[in-house]
């Protein structure tokens, strides 16, 4: 609610009285996943620095990277990355003015989330299978 709002009467449709729908969910997720991916890139830069510093430095982060927690982080970040990638392509298609049919857009939103989740499961399964 806006700051300094003193009127006691009910407000017309506002952010808190909006019906949730798939395109809204995918739009919010796109922004949220973008922020997480930025943090992921910072982590990538730091990990590369540890790698470049030599084996004795990489040995300090290696147990965390290859722990179950590391696998969980990989699962989250890879799923988020694939979701942002797929939804980003959809945004580029939207930018050229196509794909605005509500029914299609809602379906694409749900399918995108589903594909990202499945891809995250598959890639994490492949990776943990290759490591152990």
């Amino acid at each position, binding site marked *: 609610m806006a700051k300094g709002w003193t009127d006691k009467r009910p407000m017309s449709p506002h952010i808190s009285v909006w019906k949730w729908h798939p395109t809204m969910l995918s739009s919010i997720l796109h922004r949220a996943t973008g922020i997480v991916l930025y943090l992921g*890139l910072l982590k*990538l*830069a730091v990990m*590369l*620095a540890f790698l*470049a510093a030599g084996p004795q430095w990489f040995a300090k982060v290696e147990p965390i990277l290859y722990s179950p927690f590391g696998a969980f982080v990989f699962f989250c970040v890879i799923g988020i990355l694939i979701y942002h990638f797929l939804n980003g392509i959809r945004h580029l298609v939207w930018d050229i003015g196509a794909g605005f049919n509500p029914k299609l857009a809602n379906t694409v939103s749900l399918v995108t989330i589903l594909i990202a989740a499945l891809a995250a499961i598959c*890639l994490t399964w492949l*990776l943990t299978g290759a490591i152990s």
Partner: protein
Amino acid sequence: MSDFRTDLGKVRGIGGAKGGVHEFITHRVSAIVLALLLPFFVYGLMKALPGGYDGLMDWAGSPSGAFILLAFLSAGIFHGRLGINEVISDYVQSTGMRSFSMLLNALVSVSAWLIGVLAILKIWLGLTIPMMLWLLVQAVLAYGRHWVQRKLVSKPHV
């Protein structure tokens, strides 16, 4: 064409930001670059991670791996910085806090990019830290000369 803006709106400065096309376009161009790079990045990561230290060093030390990492990290941080700036300008209301947040974002982004790129160059080309610092100083000096030439020597456009 008639003027639709109210007098109060003009006084308060409400209206378009009169800028941002560059950010809009480069955000999308970097998105296309990242979309093209992503399959190679994920494939390389999946191949390199099981190999531990040696696998990751082999990946970042190979020409194709170093190229993918350099391009993905650079385009990613560029794209991410623009995205975070967009989030900041959407949600941070006071001008001072907004400017501070964007400055912090710039510092964090450039630092992370520099750390990542120097690390990849060290792994790939075996450059030592003094050699990289020398390269960095040369790059800053070259940019400074370019900037001085553009700002001071060339005539201003009318």
